[in-house]
């Protein structure tokens, strides 16, 4: 033993064993308290055991140990029902949780199937919808419920500049009817008069002195626009009876009549699409 400042004694840890050994090895091999050995070495074999006090101490320690064992056993015994109850509850919860999870997973699978079905149906429907939409557009253009733009012609007509003296210089509804008729014959795809789309419901009439198109009174000049082939329509129009008639009107009555080919005309829609009397009859 060496003395250090402050009165601490430094005990040489290697006093009884020669080399320094690692912790694990020490734990595994030096399992008997070294004090036993050092005390036994120091004790004089001749001198009998000096202190009966310690012998009593050893016995009481054994008593206490026994007590500890007993109480320990007892406590464990007492805890058993609690432990068992807790286990039982845990197991119950686990089983409940598992069946609930199984239900949820079933629900999940069913939902997943349903959503997948809905989505694939949606995809199929999109195609149908597109077809329907295309058909609606094509029909709408033909019926006049959808506006169009494109190349075509603009025909401007007006009463003769000097009316009064020569009646006949006034544009009549029948004249416009013939003109429009000629345009259709010349290949027009859509026609409007003063931005009124001509549909199968549109009438060109005379009410009093004003021409009405689709029940609306118009005043000259009248602008008739039509989409179609701008290169051929003017000539074709003039070849029709209507066109010829108008040339006649122009020449003989001073009615104004002008055809201009255009790269872009705009024909509005007539949104009326309500039938009061007619219904489709489908073949069965």
């Amino acid at each position, binding site marked *: 033993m060496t003395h250090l400042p402050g009165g601490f004694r430094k005990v040489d840890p290697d006093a009884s064993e020669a080399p320094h050994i690692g912790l694990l090895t020490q734990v595994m091999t030096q399992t008997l308290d070294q004090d036993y050995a050092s005390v036994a070495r120091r004790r004089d074999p001749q001198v009998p055991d000096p202190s009966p006090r310690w012998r009593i101490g050893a016995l009481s320690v054994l008593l206490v140990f026994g007590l500890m064992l007993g109480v320990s056993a007892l406590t464990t015994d007492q805890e058993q029902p609690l432990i068992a109850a807790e286990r039982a509850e845990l197991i119950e919860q686990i089983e409940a949780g598992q069946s609930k999870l199984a239900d949820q997973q079933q629900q999940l699978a069913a939902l997943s199937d349903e959503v997948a079905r809905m989505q694939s149906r949606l995809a199929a*429907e999109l195609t149908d919808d597109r077809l329907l939409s295309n058909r609606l557009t094509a*029909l*709408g*253009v033909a019926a006049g419920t959808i506006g169009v733009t494109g190349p075509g012609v603009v025909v401007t007509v007006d009463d003769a500049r000097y009316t009064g003296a020569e009646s006949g210089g006034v544009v009549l509804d029948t004249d416009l*009817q013939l003109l429009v008729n000629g345009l259709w014959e010349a290949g*027009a795809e859509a026609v409007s008069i003063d931005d009124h789309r001509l549909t199968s419901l549109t*009438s060109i009439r005379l009410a009093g002195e004003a021409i009405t198109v689709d029940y609306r009174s118009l005043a000259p000049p009248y602008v008739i626009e039509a989409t179609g*082939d701008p290169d051929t329509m003017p000539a074709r129009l003039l070849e029709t009876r209507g066109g010829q008639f108008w040339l006649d009107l122009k020449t003989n009555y001073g009615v104004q009549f002008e055809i201009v080919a255009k790269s872009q005309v705009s024909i509005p829609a007539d949104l009326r699409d309500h039938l009061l009397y007619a219904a489709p009859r489908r073949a069965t």
Partner: protein
Amino acid sequence: MPEPPTSPPEGSTKRSLRSQLFVGLLLAVLGFAAVAQMRLTRDDTDYSGQRREVLIELLDSLSSAAERTLVQVDELERTRDELLSSSERRQIAIDEAESRLQVLEVLTGTVAATGPGVTITITDPEDSVAAASLLNGIEELRDAGAEAIEINDTVRVVASTFFTEQDGEVRIDGVAVRPPYLIDAIGSSHTLSEAVIFPGGLADEIERLGGTVSVEEANLVEVGSLHSIDAPEYSQPTEG
């Protein structure tokens, strides 16, 4: 002199045999216990052999699995509800589109139509009724609210229908039509018939030309002829 190798004494043979048997028995017990435990571990589904900590861990992982599943279920339900509502909306749009389709088909003459209306019979004994007269008559019918018109059960009259004459024959949309002209028109029977017999109307004009006009009102007029539409080459729709 080297001693000959002695054979092992009898007693030690018996002892080594006994100890070998003992070892063998112990190993047998070990093997049996190992197999029993393995089988128990594999078949243990009632948790009676599991430690408390294992049970608690199991419970924890169960509840997080349940939570995850719940989140997934929620997400899927939301997706499904969205799909349902968009499907409902689509159905409404489809229904609307279908009814529009019907109207458009009647207007464009791509489907046969029925309804109340009139049948007008025009005779032309003097061959003087011109296309222009028929055209004017059609305009009068349109003015009177005719929704579907056909002539001679052959030609469906639509917006683009044009009337011409060739070789003394009336042609409608290029198709030759001969008198007597039968015009079927669907609309308000009364209004339509009034329009025809109106002074200065179709009847007056035809009679002036030497023909006759008779109008028959009916509750059910059939307009069966169809008009085929061509895809437009120059017109572009401005919507849709």
